[in-house]
Protein backbone atom coordinates (compact mmCIF):
# COMPACT_ATOMS: atom_id res chain seq x y z
CA UNK A 1 0.00 0.00 0.00
CA UNK A 2 1.29 3.45 -0.82
CA UNK A 3 0.93 6.44 1.44
CA UNK A 4 1.78 10.10 1.03
CA UNK A 5 4.60 11.52 3.05
CA UNK A 6 3.28 13.27 6.12
CA UNK A 7 -0.28 12.02 5.59
CA UNK A 8 -1.88 9.52 7.94
CA UNK A 9 -1.96 5.94 6.71
CA UNK A 10 -5.32 4.79 5.43
CA UNK A 11 -7.16 2.30 7.58
CA UNK A 12 -7.47 -1.14 6.04
CA UNK A 13 -10.84 -1.89 4.48
CA UNK A 14 -13.23 -3.42 6.97
CA UNK A 15 -13.80 -6.57 4.96
CA UNK A 16 -13.21 -8.17 1.62
CA UNK A 17 -11.85 -6.33 -1.38
CA UNK A 18 -10.29 -2.92 -1.01
CA UNK A 19 -12.45 -0.09 -2.30
CA UNK A 20 -11.62 1.26 -5.74
CA UNK A 21 -11.34 4.73 -4.26
CA UNK A 22 -10.53 5.65 -0.68
CA UNK A 23 -10.25 9.30 0.29
CA UNK A 24 -9.55 10.76 3.71
CA UNK A 25 -9.51 14.45 4.52
CA UNK A 26 -8.95 15.62 0.95
CA UNK A 27 -8.15 19.34 0.73
CA UNK A 28 -7.51 21.54 -2.29
CA UNK A 29 -6.99 25.28 -2.08
CA UNK A 30 -6.94 27.87 -4.81
CA UNK A 31 -5.59 31.24 -3.72
CA UNK A 32 -6.05 30.42 -0.05
CA UNK A 33 -9.70 29.36 -0.50
CA UNK A 34 -10.46 25.69 0.08
CA UNK A 35 -12.54 24.44 -2.86
CA UNK A 36 -12.31 20.89 -1.51
CA UNK A 37 -12.43 21.04 2.23
CA UNK A 38 -11.90 17.74 4.01
CA UNK A 39 -13.69 15.17 1.85
CA UNK A 40 -13.87 11.54 3.03
CA UNK A 41 -15.09 9.11 0.39
CA UNK A 42 -15.13 5.41 -0.41
CA UNK A 43 -16.15 4.03 -3.79
CA UNK A 44 -16.63 0.27 -3.79
CA UNK A 45 -15.49 -1.91 -6.63
CA UNK A 46 -18.18 -2.40 -9.24
CA UNK A 47 -20.54 0.31 -8.08
CA UNK A 48 -21.73 3.49 -9.73
CA UNK A 49 -21.09 6.36 -7.35
CA UNK A 50 -22.52 9.79 -8.08
CA UNK A 51 -21.00 12.94 -6.69
CA UNK A 52 -24.01 15.22 -6.69
CA UNK A 53 -23.83 18.93 -6.11
CA UNK A 54 -24.39 22.39 -7.53
CA UNK A 55 -21.91 24.15 -9.79
CA UNK A 56 -18.82 25.25 -7.91
CA UNK A 57 -19.29 22.65 -5.16
CA UNK A 58 -15.87 21.08 -5.78
CA UNK A 59 -16.96 18.08 -7.88
CA UNK A 60 -14.66 18.58 -10.83
CA UNK A 61 -11.66 19.40 -8.66
CA UNK A 62 -12.25 16.28 -6.57
CA UNK A 63 -12.47 14.08 -9.66
CA UNK A 64 -9.39 15.65 -11.21
CA UNK A 65 -7.38 14.96 -8.07
CA UNK A 66 -8.64 11.36 -7.90
CA UNK A 67 -7.76 10.87 -11.57
CA UNK A 68 -4.23 12.13 -10.95
CA UNK A 69 -4.69 15.26 -13.05
CA UNK A 70 -4.22 17.77 -10.23
CA UNK A 71 -2.25 17.87 -7.01
CA UNK A 72 -3.90 17.98 -3.62
CA UNK A 73 -3.00 20.20 -0.71
CA UNK A 74 -3.92 17.74 2.02
CA UNK A 75 -5.39 14.38 2.90
CA UNK A 76 -4.62 10.83 1.90
CA UNK A 77 -5.75 9.09 -1.22
CA UNK A 78 -5.80 5.60 -2.63
CA UNK A 79 -7.20 4.90 -6.09
CA UNK A 80 -6.94 1.33 -7.38
CA UNK A 81 -4.39 0.71 -4.64
CA UNK A 82 -2.10 3.60 -5.49
CA UNK A 83 -1.66 7.26 -4.74
CA UNK A 84 -2.62 9.05 -7.98
CA UNK A 85 -0.06 11.80 -7.32
CA UNK A 86 2.79 9.36 -7.81
CA UNK A 87 1.13 6.81 -10.05
CA UNK A 88 2.80 5.48 -13.19
CA UNK A 89 1.46 4.81 -16.65
CA UNK A 90 0.39 1.29 -15.78
CA UNK A 91 -1.99 2.78 -13.23
CA UNK A 92 -3.07 5.48 -15.68
CA UNK A 93 -4.05 2.81 -18.20
CA UNK A 94 -6.41 1.22 -15.63
CA UNK A 95 -8.27 4.51 -15.18
CA UNK A 96 -10.54 6.16 -17.72
CA UNK A 97 -11.54 9.81 -17.70
CA UNK A 98 -14.35 11.55 -19.54
CA UNK A 99 -13.93 15.26 -18.94
CA UNK A 100 -16.29 18.18 -19.47
CA UNK A 101 -14.78 19.30 -22.74
CA UNK A 102 -11.61 18.01 -24.24
CA UNK A 103 -10.64 18.33 -27.85
CA UNK A 104 -9.42 15.55 -30.06
CA UNK A 105 -8.28 17.22 -33.27
CA UNK A 106 -11.34 18.52 -35.07
CA UNK A 107 -10.06 17.78 -38.57
CA UNK A 108 -9.99 14.01 -37.94
CA UNK A 109 -12.86 11.66 -38.60
CA UNK A 110 -14.40 9.74 -35.74
CA UNK A 111 -12.75 6.51 -36.85
CA UNK A 112 -9.35 8.17 -37.27
CA UNK A 113 -9.63 9.65 -33.80
CA UNK A 114 -10.50 6.33 -32.20
CA UNK A 115 -7.81 4.49 -34.17
CA UNK A 116 -5.22 7.04 -33.10
CA UNK A 117 -5.96 6.96 -29.39
CA UNK A 118 -6.02 3.15 -29.42
CA UNK A 119 -2.26 3.43 -29.74
CA UNK A 120 -1.96 4.82 -26.20
CA UNK A 121 -3.42 1.78 -24.44
CA UNK A 122 -2.15 -1.63 -23.43
CA UNK A 123 -5.39 -3.47 -24.26
CA UNK A 124 -7.54 -1.20 -26.42
CA UNK A 125 -11.04 -2.15 -27.39
CA UNK A 126 -11.48 -2.89 -31.11
CA UNK A 127 -12.33 0.41 -32.82
CA UNK A 128 -15.35 -0.83 -34.78
CA UNK A 129 -16.81 -2.56 -31.72
CA UNK A 130 -16.21 0.52 -29.62
CA UNK A 131 -18.05 2.79 -32.06
CA UNK A 132 -20.89 0.26 -32.22
CA UNK A 133 -21.10 0.13 -28.46
CA UNK A 134 -21.49 3.90 -28.06
CA UNK A 135 -23.81 4.20 -31.06
CA UNK A 136 -21.41 6.03 -33.36
CA UNK A 137 -21.11 3.31 -36.01
CA UNK A 138 -22.97 5.49 -38.50
CA UNK A 139 -20.63 8.45 -38.07
CA UNK A 140 -17.28 6.68 -38.35
CA UNK A 141 -16.34 8.73 -41.40
CA UNK A 142 -17.73 12.03 -40.14
CA UNK A 143 -15.26 14.71 -39.15
CA UNK A 144 -15.26 15.43 -35.43
CA UNK A 145 -16.10 19.10 -35.96
CA UNK A 146 -19.32 18.11 -37.74
CA UNK A 147 -20.67 15.97 -34.88
CA UNK A 148 -23.69 17.05 -32.86
CA UNK A 149 -23.27 17.78 -29.17
CA UNK A 150 -24.64 14.37 -28.23
CA UNK A 151 -22.40 12.56 -30.69
CA UNK A 152 -19.39 14.42 -29.35
CA UNK A 153 -20.21 13.27 -25.83
CA UNK A 154 -20.42 9.71 -27.12
CA UNK A 155 -17.02 10.07 -28.70
CA UNK A 156 -15.71 11.40 -25.40
CA UNK A 157 -17.05 8.33 -23.67
CA UNK A 158 -15.65 6.04 -26.34
CA UNK A 159 -12.21 7.54 -25.79
CA UNK A 160 -12.65 7.35 -22.02
CA UNK A 161 -13.43 3.61 -22.03
CA UNK A 162 -11.25 2.64 -24.99
CA UNK A 163 -8.46 1.32 -22.76
CA UNK A 164 -10.91 -0.96 -20.87
CA UNK A 165 -10.52 0.90 -17.57
CA UNK A 166 -11.31 -0.71 -14.23
CA UNK A 167 -12.38 2.68 -12.93
CA UNK A 168 -14.09 5.34 -15.00
CA UNK A 169 -14.43 8.99 -14.00
CA UNK A 170 -17.21 10.90 -15.74
CA UNK A 171 -17.39 14.62 -15.09
CA UNK A 172 -20.90 15.93 -15.77
CA UNK A 173 -21.30 13.58 -18.71
CA UNK A 174 -24.82 14.58 -19.71
CA UNK A 175 -24.69 18.36 -19.30
CA UNK A 176 -26.15 19.87 -22.44
CA UNK A 177 -27.71 16.66 -23.76
CA UNK A 178 -31.36 16.46 -24.74
CA UNK A 179 -33.58 14.10 -22.72
CA UNK A 180 -33.44 11.24 -25.26
CA UNK A 181 -29.66 11.45 -25.51
CA UNK A 182 -29.43 11.46 -21.70
CA UNK A 183 -31.48 8.27 -21.51
CA UNK A 184 -29.23 6.56 -24.07
CA UNK A 185 -26.25 7.77 -22.12
CA UNK A 186 -27.59 6.24 -18.94
CA UNK A 187 -28.00 2.90 -20.69
CA UNK A 188 -24.37 3.15 -21.74
CA UNK A 189 -23.19 3.75 -18.16
CA UNK A 190 -25.32 0.87 -16.89
CA UNK A 191 -23.79 -1.36 -19.54
CA UNK A 192 -20.31 -0.46 -18.39
CA UNK A 193 -21.22 -1.13 -14.77
CA UNK A 194 -22.73 -4.50 -15.72
CA UNK A 195 -19.46 -5.44 -17.38
CA UNK A 196 -17.46 -4.79 -14.25
CA UNK A 197 -16.36 -1.17 -14.55
CA UNK A 198 -16.45 0.95 -11.41
CA UNK A 199 -17.92 4.35 -12.20
CA UNK A 200 -17.55 7.63 -10.36
CA UNK A 201 -19.61 10.34 -12.01
CA UNK A 202 -20.35 13.92 -11.09
CA UNK A 203 -23.65 15.51 -11.88
CA UNK A 204 -25.84 18.38 -10.82
CA UNK A 205 -28.95 16.52 -11.90
CA UNK A 206 -30.73 14.82 -9.03
CA UNK A 207 -32.71 12.52 -11.33
CA UNK A 208 -29.51 11.35 -12.97
CA UNK A 209 -27.91 10.47 -9.66
CA UNK A 210 -31.12 8.76 -8.53
CA UNK A 211 -31.40 6.75 -11.72
CA UNK A 212 -27.80 5.67 -12.20
CA UNK A 213 -26.06 5.55 -8.89
CA UNK A 214 -25.84 2.77 -6.34
CA UNK A 215 -24.79 5.42 -3.87
CA UNK A 216 -24.87 9.19 -3.97
CA UNK A 217 -22.54 11.61 -2.24
CA UNK A 218 -23.94 15.10 -1.91
CA UNK A 219 -21.19 17.70 -2.09
CA UNK A 220 -21.59 21.38 -1.30
CA UNK A 221 -19.09 24.06 -0.43
CA UNK A 222 -16.24 21.60 -0.88
CA UNK A 223 -17.64 19.23 1.76
CA UNK A 224 -19.40 15.90 1.45
CA UNK A 225 -22.61 16.48 3.39
CA UNK A 226 -24.16 13.03 3.00
CA UNK A 227 -23.52 9.65 1.41
CA UNK A 228 -26.45 7.27 0.91
CA UNK A 229 -28.33 5.12 -1.54
CA UNK A 230 -30.54 7.40 -3.65
CA UNK A 231 -33.71 6.25 -1.87
CA UNK A 232 -32.22 6.83 1.56
CA UNK A 233 -30.86 10.26 0.87
CA UNK A 234 -31.75 12.73 3.62
CA UNK A 235 -33.58 10.10 5.64
CA UNK A 236 -33.53 12.35 8.69
CA UNK A 237 -34.90 15.30 6.81
CA UNK A 238 -37.61 13.22 5.21
CA UNK A 239 -39.10 12.28 8.56
CA UNK A 240 -40.11 15.88 8.93
CA UNK A 241 -43.62 16.45 7.71
CA UNK A 242 -45.34 19.75 7.19
CA UNK A 243 -48.95 20.11 8.34
CA UNK A 244 -50.77 23.05 6.76
CA UNK A 245 -54.24 24.40 7.25
CA UNK A 246 -56.15 27.66 7.35
CA UNK A 247 -57.42 29.10 10.59
CA UNK A 248 -59.43 32.34 10.87
CA UNK A 249 -58.48 33.14 7.30
CA UNK A 250 -54.75 32.85 7.97
CA UNK A 251 -52.47 30.12 6.60
CA UNK A 252 -50.91 28.01 9.38
CA UNK A 253 -48.02 25.62 9.13
CA UNK A 254 -46.31 23.22 11.53
CA UNK A 255 -43.15 21.25 10.74
CA UNK A 256 -43.04 18.11 12.84
CA UNK A 257 -41.73 14.60 13.12
CA UNK A 258 -45.10 13.55 14.60
CA UNK A 259 -47.76 14.77 12.19
CA UNK A 260 -50.36 12.38 13.60
CA UNK A 261 -50.15 14.06 16.99
CA UNK A 262 -50.58 17.46 15.40
CA UNK A 263 -53.60 16.19 13.49
CA UNK A 264 -55.16 14.69 16.62
CA UNK A 265 -54.89 18.04 18.38
CA UNK A 266 -56.36 19.85 15.39
CA UNK A 267 -59.28 17.45 15.14
CA UNK A 268 -59.92 17.67 18.86
CA UNK A 269 -60.04 21.45 18.62
CA UNK A 270 -62.53 21.29 15.77
CA UNK A 271 -64.74 18.25 16.41
CA UNK A 272 -67.20 19.19 13.67
CA UNK A 273 -66.90 20.58 10.20
CA UNK A 274 -63.96 20.67 7.82
CA UNK A 275 -60.56 22.13 8.63
CA UNK A 276 -59.92 24.38 5.61
CA UNK A 277 -56.93 23.55 3.35
CA UNK A 278 -55.67 20.75 5.61
CA UNK A 279 -52.67 18.91 4.18
CA UNK A 280 -49.73 16.80 5.37
CA UNK A 281 -46.70 16.75 3.09
CA UNK A 282 -43.30 15.11 3.33
CA UNK A 283 -40.31 16.55 1.46
CA UNK A 284 -39.53 14.97 -1.89
CA UNK A 285 -36.05 13.94 -2.96
CA UNK A 286 -35.51 17.33 -4.53
CA UNK A 287 -36.51 19.24 -1.39
CA UNK A 288 -34.14 17.09 0.63
CA UNK A 289 -31.33 17.63 -1.81
CA UNK A 290 -31.80 21.38 -1.90
CA UNK A 291 -31.77 21.54 1.90
CA UNK A 292 -28.66 19.39 2.14
CA UNK A 293 -26.91 21.60 -0.38
CA UNK A 294 -27.90 24.91 1.18
CA UNK A 295 -26.94 23.70 4.67
CA UNK A 296 -23.65 22.35 3.34
CA UNK A 297 -22.80 25.53 1.50
CA UNK A 298 -23.54 27.81 4.44
CA UNK A 299 -21.65 25.81 7.04
Amino acid at each position, binding site marked *: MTTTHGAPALPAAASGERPAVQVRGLVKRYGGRAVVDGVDLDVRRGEVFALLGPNGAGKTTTVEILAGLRRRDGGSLEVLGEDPAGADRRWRDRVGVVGQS*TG*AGDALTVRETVDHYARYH*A*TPQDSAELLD*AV*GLEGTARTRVDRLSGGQRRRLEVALGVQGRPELLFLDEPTTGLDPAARRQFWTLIE*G*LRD*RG*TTVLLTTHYLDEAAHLADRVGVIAGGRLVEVAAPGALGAGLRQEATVRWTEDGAAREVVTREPSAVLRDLLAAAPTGEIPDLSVTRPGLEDVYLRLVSEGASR
Partner: protein
Amino acid sequence: MTDLLPSPPPATRRPAPPGALSIGWARVALELRLFVRDPGQLVFSFAYPVVMLVIFGSIFADREVAPGVDFRQYFLAGIAATGIMLTSFQAVGLAITEERDRGDLVRLQTLGTPPLAYGIGKAGQVVLTTAVQLTVLLVVAATVYDVPMPDDAGRWLTFAWVAVLGVLAGTVLGIAVSSFVGSARAAGTGIPAVAIVLQFFSGVFFVFSELPGWMQQLAAVFPLKWMTQGMRSVFLPDAAKAAEPAGSWEHGTTAAVLAAWVIIGVVVCARSFRWRRNAG
Protein backbone atom coordinates in the same frame (compact mmCIF):
# COMPACT_ATOMS: atom_id res chain seq x y z
CA MET B 1 -25.17 -2.44 -28.75
CA THR B 2 -24.02 -2.32 -25.14
CA ASP B 3 -22.93 -5.96 -25.28
CA LEU B 4 -19.97 -4.69 -27.28
CA LEU B 5 -18.88 -2.41 -24.44
CA PRO B 6 -15.40 -3.06 -23.13
CA SER B 7 -14.89 -4.97 -19.93
CA PRO B 8 -11.74 -4.46 -17.91
CA PRO B 9 -9.12 -7.20 -17.90
CA PRO B 10 -7.75 -8.17 -14.47
CA ALA B 11 -4.98 -5.78 -13.44
CA THR B 12 -2.47 -8.61 -13.30
CA ARG B 13 -3.19 -9.60 -16.90
CA ARG B 14 -2.86 -6.10 -18.29
CA PRO B 15 0.43 -5.64 -20.16
CA ALA B 16 2.46 -2.45 -19.89
CA PRO B 17 1.09 0.41 -22.00
CA PRO B 18 2.99 1.40 -25.17
CA GLY B 19 6.18 3.40 -24.66
CA ALA B 20 7.00 7.00 -25.56
CA LEU B 21 8.63 6.07 -28.89
CA SER B 22 5.65 4.03 -30.05
CA ILE B 23 3.17 6.77 -29.14
CA GLY B 24 5.52 9.42 -30.50
CA TRP B 25 5.56 7.66 -33.86
CA ALA B 26 1.77 7.54 -33.93
CA ARG B 27 1.73 11.23 -33.08
CA VAL B 28 4.01 12.12 -36.01
CA ALA B 29 1.43 10.57 -38.33
CA LEU B 30 -1.38 12.40 -36.51
CA GLU B 31 0.38 15.77 -36.59
CA LEU B 32 1.09 15.41 -40.31
CA ARG B 33 -2.50 14.48 -41.00
CA LEU B 34 -3.75 17.52 -39.07
CA PHE B 35 -1.17 19.72 -40.82
CA VAL B 36 -2.23 18.81 -44.34
CA ARG B 37 -5.89 19.32 -43.40
CA ASP B 38 -5.22 22.86 -42.22
CA PRO B 39 -5.18 25.10 -45.33
CA GLY B 40 -3.85 28.06 -43.36
CA GLN B 41 -0.83 26.10 -42.13
CA LEU B 42 -0.18 24.63 -45.56
CA VAL B 43 -0.24 27.98 -47.33
CA PHE B 44 1.73 29.78 -44.66
CA SER B 45 4.45 27.16 -44.35
CA PHE B 46 4.95 26.41 -48.03
CA ALA B 47 4.03 29.64 -49.80
CA TYR B 48 5.30 32.30 -47.38
CA PRO B 49 9.04 31.88 -48.09
CA VAL B 50 8.39 31.71 -51.84
CA VAL B 51 6.22 34.83 -51.72
CA MET B 52 8.93 36.69 -49.80
CA LEU B 53 11.51 35.54 -52.34
CA VAL B 54 9.31 36.84 -55.15
CA ILE B 55 8.71 40.20 -53.43
CA PHE B 56 12.31 40.89 -52.45
CA GLY B 57 13.62 39.37 -55.64
CA SER B 58 11.49 41.79 -57.65
CA ILE B 59 12.32 44.87 -55.58
CA PHE B 60 16.07 44.31 -55.64
CA ALA B 61 16.17 42.64 -59.03
CA ASP B 62 19.48 44.03 -60.23
CA ARG B 63 21.25 44.69 -56.98
CA GLU B 64 24.51 43.05 -56.11
CA VAL B 65 25.39 42.86 -52.43
CA ALA B 66 28.99 41.97 -53.30
CA PRO B 67 30.87 41.44 -56.54
CA GLY B 68 29.28 38.39 -58.14
CA VAL B 69 26.65 37.98 -55.42
CA ASP B 70 23.12 38.80 -56.47
CA PHE B 71 20.71 40.03 -53.75
CA ARG B 72 18.38 37.11 -54.44
CA GLN B 73 21.17 34.73 -53.75
CA TYR B 74 21.90 36.50 -50.47
CA PHE B 75 18.22 36.66 -49.61
CA LEU B 76 17.66 32.97 -50.35
CA ALA B 77 20.02 32.11 -47.50
CA GLY B 78 18.10 34.38 -45.13
CA ILE B 79 14.63 33.26 -46.18
CA ALA B 80 15.60 29.57 -45.98
CA ALA B 81 16.71 30.13 -42.37
CA THR B 82 13.57 32.16 -41.69
CA GLY B 83 11.38 29.40 -43.14
CA ILE B 84 12.94 26.94 -40.74
CA MET B 85 12.30 29.25 -37.80
CA LEU B 86 8.68 29.81 -38.82
CA THR B 87 7.77 26.13 -39.34
CA SER B 88 9.51 25.20 -36.11
CA PHE B 89 9.59 27.92 -33.45
CA GLN B 90 6.60 29.98 -34.51
CA ALA B 91 4.29 27.20 -35.74
CA VAL B 92 5.02 24.94 -32.78
CA GLY B 93 4.67 27.72 -30.20
CA LEU B 94 1.33 28.81 -31.66
CA ALA B 95 0.00 25.27 -32.13
CA ILE B 96 0.73 24.20 -28.55
CA THR B 97 -0.94 27.23 -26.98
CA GLU B 98 -3.99 26.59 -29.15
CA GLU B 99 -4.08 22.90 -28.31
CA ARG B 100 -3.71 23.76 -24.64
CA ASP B 101 -6.53 26.32 -24.74
CA ARG B 102 -8.79 23.90 -26.64
CA GLY B 103 -8.26 21.11 -24.13
CA ASP B 104 -6.51 18.76 -26.56
CA LEU B 105 -3.61 18.53 -24.14
CA VAL B 106 -5.88 17.67 -21.22
CA ARG B 107 -6.90 14.57 -23.13
CA LEU B 108 -3.26 13.62 -23.55
CA GLN B 109 -2.76 14.18 -19.84
CA THR B 110 -5.72 11.93 -18.96
CA LEU B 111 -4.25 9.23 -21.20
CA GLY B 112 -0.95 9.45 -19.34
CA THR B 113 0.85 10.42 -22.54
CA PRO B 114 4.61 10.76 -21.97
CA PRO B 115 5.51 14.40 -22.73
CA LEU B 116 8.42 13.00 -24.75
CA ALA B 117 5.94 11.32 -27.11
CA TYR B 118 4.22 14.65 -27.65
CA GLY B 119 7.58 16.32 -28.36
CA ILE B 120 8.51 13.57 -30.83
CA GLY B 121 5.24 14.12 -32.67
CA LYS B 122 5.89 17.86 -32.98
CA ALA B 123 9.54 17.40 -34.01
CA GLY B 124 8.70 14.76 -36.61
CA GLN B 125 6.00 16.93 -38.15
CA VAL B 126 8.33 19.96 -38.22
CA VAL B 127 11.21 18.01 -39.81
CA LEU B 128 9.01 16.70 -42.62
CA THR B 129 7.13 19.91 -43.32
CA THR B 130 10.36 21.93 -43.25
CA ALA B 131 11.92 19.52 -45.73
CA VAL B 132 9.02 20.06 -48.13
CA GLN B 133 9.12 23.82 -47.57
CA LEU B 134 12.86 24.08 -48.29
CA THR B 135 12.53 21.87 -51.38
CA VAL B 136 9.81 24.10 -52.82
CA LEU B 137 11.82 27.23 -52.00
CA LEU B 138 15.04 25.95 -53.59
CA VAL B 139 13.29 24.70 -56.70
CA VAL B 140 11.62 28.10 -57.23
CA ALA B 141 14.87 29.96 -56.54
CA ALA B 142 16.82 27.77 -58.95
CA THR B 143 14.30 27.60 -61.77
CA VAL B 144 12.57 30.99 -61.65
CA TYR B 145 15.40 33.22 -60.40
CA ASP B 146 18.40 31.23 -61.63
CA VAL B 147 20.01 31.32 -58.21
CA PRO B 148 23.02 29.02 -58.52
CA MET B 149 22.73 25.87 -56.38
CA PRO B 150 25.82 24.45 -54.70
CA ASP B 151 27.41 21.67 -56.74
CA ASP B 152 29.58 20.00 -54.11
CA ALA B 153 28.53 17.54 -51.43
CA GLY B 154 30.28 19.49 -48.69
CA ARG B 155 27.95 22.45 -49.05
CA TRP B 156 24.87 20.23 -49.07
CA LEU B 157 26.18 18.58 -45.92
CA THR B 158 26.44 22.04 -44.34
CA PHE B 159 22.91 22.76 -45.53
CA ALA B 160 21.72 19.54 -43.89
CA TRP B 161 23.28 20.07 -40.47
CA VAL B 162 22.34 23.75 -40.29
CA ALA B 163 18.76 22.85 -41.22
CA VAL B 164 18.54 19.94 -38.76
CA LEU B 165 20.05 21.87 -35.85
CA GLY B 166 17.86 24.85 -36.72
CA VAL B 167 14.73 22.68 -36.80
CA LEU B 168 15.58 21.04 -33.49
CA ALA B 169 16.42 24.34 -31.78
CA GLY B 170 13.26 25.95 -33.17
CA THR B 171 11.05 23.05 -32.12
CA VAL B 172 12.27 22.79 -28.53
CA LEU B 173 12.25 26.58 -28.15
CA GLY B 174 8.72 26.67 -29.58
CA ILE B 175 7.61 24.08 -27.02
CA ALA B 176 9.47 25.97 -24.29
CA VAL B 177 8.01 29.37 -25.14
CA SER B 178 4.48 27.95 -25.15
CA SER B 179 4.76 27.42 -21.39
CA PHE B 180 5.31 31.12 -20.74
CA VAL B 181 3.14 33.07 -23.18
CA GLY B 182 -0.23 32.28 -21.59
CA SER B 183 -3.28 32.14 -23.84
CA ALA B 184 -3.30 31.34 -27.54
CA ARG B 185 -4.39 34.94 -28.10
CA ALA B 186 -1.35 36.31 -26.35
CA ALA B 187 0.86 33.84 -28.19
CA GLY B 188 -0.69 34.86 -31.50
CA THR B 189 0.68 38.37 -31.14
CA GLY B 190 3.79 37.73 -29.06
CA ILE B 191 5.47 34.87 -30.90
CA PRO B 192 5.24 36.34 -34.45
CA ALA B 193 6.47 39.67 -33.07
CA VAL B 194 9.59 37.98 -31.71
CA ALA B 195 10.06 36.17 -35.01
CA ILE B 196 9.82 39.37 -37.05
CA VAL B 197 12.24 41.34 -34.87
CA LEU B 198 14.72 38.46 -35.05
CA GLN B 199 14.45 38.46 -38.84
CA PHE B 200 15.39 42.16 -39.02
CA PHE B 201 18.24 41.75 -36.49
CA SER B 202 19.62 38.62 -38.07
CA GLY B 203 20.25 39.87 -41.58
CA VAL B 204 17.35 38.25 -43.38
CA PHE B 205 15.98 41.36 -45.08
CA PHE B 206 19.17 43.42 -44.95
CA VAL B 207 22.79 42.55 -45.49
CA PHE B 208 24.00 41.52 -42.04
CA SER B 209 27.35 43.28 -42.25
CA GLU B 210 25.57 46.59 -42.95
CA LEU B 211 23.55 46.43 -39.70
CA PRO B 212 24.66 48.53 -36.70
CA GLY B 213 27.23 46.81 -34.50
CA TRP B 214 24.98 46.57 -31.43
CA MET B 215 22.30 44.91 -33.53
CA GLN B 216 24.77 42.37 -34.87
CA GLN B 217 25.99 41.60 -31.37
CA LEU B 218 22.47 41.20 -30.01
CA ALA B 219 21.48 38.98 -32.94
CA ALA B 220 24.51 36.77 -32.29
CA VAL B 221 22.89 35.61 -29.04
CA PHE B 222 19.96 34.04 -30.92
CA PRO B 223 19.91 31.06 -33.29
CA LEU B 224 18.49 32.79 -36.39
CA LYS B 225 21.64 34.83 -37.04
CA TRP B 226 23.70 31.65 -37.03
CA MET B 227 21.22 29.83 -39.24
CA THR B 228 21.33 32.63 -41.85
CA GLN B 229 25.11 32.72 -41.66
CA GLY B 230 25.26 28.94 -42.08
CA MET B 231 22.91 29.16 -45.06
CA ARG B 232 25.06 31.91 -46.60
CA SER B 233 28.01 29.54 -46.40
CA VAL B 234 25.92 27.15 -48.52
CA PHE B 235 24.57 29.50 -51.18
CA LEU B 236 27.20 32.28 -51.46
CA PRO B 237 30.58 31.96 -53.14
CA ASP B 238 33.51 31.38 -50.84
CA ALA B 239 34.86 34.88 -51.46
CA ALA B 240 31.78 36.31 -49.72
CA LYS B 241 32.97 35.13 -46.33
CA ALA B 242 35.26 38.15 -46.18
CA ALA B 243 32.14 40.23 -45.51
CA GLU B 244 31.14 38.13 -42.47
CA PRO B 245 31.80 39.59 -39.00
CA ALA B 246 34.69 37.21 -38.36
CA GLY B 247 35.91 37.12 -41.94
CA SER B 248 35.01 33.43 -42.08
CA TRP B 249 31.86 31.24 -42.06
CA GLU B 250 32.45 30.22 -38.40
CA HIS B 251 30.98 26.75 -38.83
CA GLY B 252 32.28 25.61 -35.44
CA THR B 253 30.65 28.53 -33.61
CA THR B 254 27.45 28.10 -35.59
CA ALA B 255 27.17 24.44 -34.63
CA ALA B 256 28.04 25.22 -31.01
CA VAL B 257 25.50 28.04 -30.64
CA LEU B 258 22.70 26.05 -32.28
CA ALA B 259 23.50 22.96 -30.19
CA ALA B 260 23.57 25.10 -27.05
CA TRP B 261 20.10 26.42 -27.87
CA VAL B 262 18.84 22.86 -28.42
CA ILE B 263 20.14 21.90 -24.98
CA ILE B 264 18.75 25.03 -23.31
CA GLY B 265 15.40 24.38 -25.00
CA VAL B 266 15.29 20.75 -23.88
CA VAL B 267 16.11 21.71 -20.29
CA VAL B 268 13.45 24.44 -20.21
CA CYS B 269 10.87 22.07 -21.77
CA ALA B 270 11.63 19.34 -19.27
CA ARG B 271 11.22 21.75 -16.36
CA SER B 272 8.29 23.84 -17.53
CA PHE B 273 6.11 21.83 -19.92
CA ARG B 274 2.54 21.47 -18.74
CA TRP B 275 -0.65 20.08 -20.21
CA ARG B 276 -2.82 22.83 -18.75
CA ARG B 277 -2.43 26.55 -18.50
CA ASN B 278 -3.35 26.52 -14.81
CA ALA B 279 -1.61 23.41 -13.59
CA GLY B 280 -1.54 22.51 -9.92
